């Protein structure tokens, strides 16, 4: 209960302070976190779950196991399990990892930056200047991951 209300507070706080979408190059890392949301609207956990699963969007299951998604077939194990991830990371930290994991884990991590233009060379023509996810999708995934408390892992 206490945790839930704390979480609600964390999520609600930035919502109140929302102004404009933050461009990929403008995201400010505050230590290990990106405290300010990058999109105008608050994240929608349901939509975030879609992005998490969708192979053309987040494709997060390619690397992360996640018990919350029933019948998820063949999740990869290149990254850690997402079970209880919200008990280990705060939303600002989750946001930072999604925006650009290399800022948090260093340049060697396999995890792509989902909201950065600091990417590899020779980007495909149809992807140039684009981020993998939109600002709103980043917020949606953050909101979704924030629901994955330890208790929800079965």
């Amino acid at each position, binding site marked *: 209960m206490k945790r839930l209300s704390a979480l609600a507070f964390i999520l609600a706080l930035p919502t109140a302070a929302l102004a404009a979408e933050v461009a990929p190059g403008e995201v400010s890392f505050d230590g290990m976190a990106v405290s300010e949301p990058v999109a105008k609207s608050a994240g929608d956990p349901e939509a975030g779950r879609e992005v998490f699963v969708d*192979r*053309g969007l987040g494709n997060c299951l390619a690397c992360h196991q996640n018990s919350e998604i029933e019948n998820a*077939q*063949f999740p990869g194990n290149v990254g850690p399990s997402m079970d209880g991830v919200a008990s280990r990371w705060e939303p600002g930290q989750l946001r930072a990892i999604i925006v650009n994991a290399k800022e948090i884990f260093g340049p060697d991590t396999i995890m792509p930056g989902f909201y950065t233009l600091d990417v590899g060379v020779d980007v495909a023509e149809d992807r140039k200047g684009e981020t993998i996810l939109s600002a709103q999708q980043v917020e949606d995934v953050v909101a979704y991951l924030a629901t994955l408390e330890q208790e929800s892992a079965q």
Partner: protein
Amino acid sequence: MTHLTRRKLFTLAAGAGTLAVAANLPRTANATPEEAQKAISEFTGGKEPQSGKITLTAPEIAENGNTVPISISVESEMTGDDFVESVTLMAEGNPNPEVATFLFTPLSGRAEATTRIRLAKTQNVVAVAKMSDGSVYSDRKEVKVTIGGCGG
């Protein structure tokens, strides 16, 4: 959003096609177990298959749905009037449930066969045997079809 997703997936698929023969996997709407049931019923003449006698061997996990090894084996002397007439293979989750039908004769010696099949996704595969005395038997196995990495 759905539109965008599909477009992106399509772009990836098109890219793949320029490099190699694109996978020949069925991509259209899939059959339902009911349709497979109907096709089985046509094969058996409406008879409800019993369990036993027939064994379907399939991998628990197929590394690629395009090439899945499958074997069927039916207990039978395969002599005189006691032999296996035919065995049909159905895939419950493919666009069309029919996969293949094997016809045996007393010269077959054994009612066993192995082939390689295409499975569009994780699904049940069903084998139904029709014996010379008119009785029918079936076996069913789930095959998990793997999903590839970043490129699909």
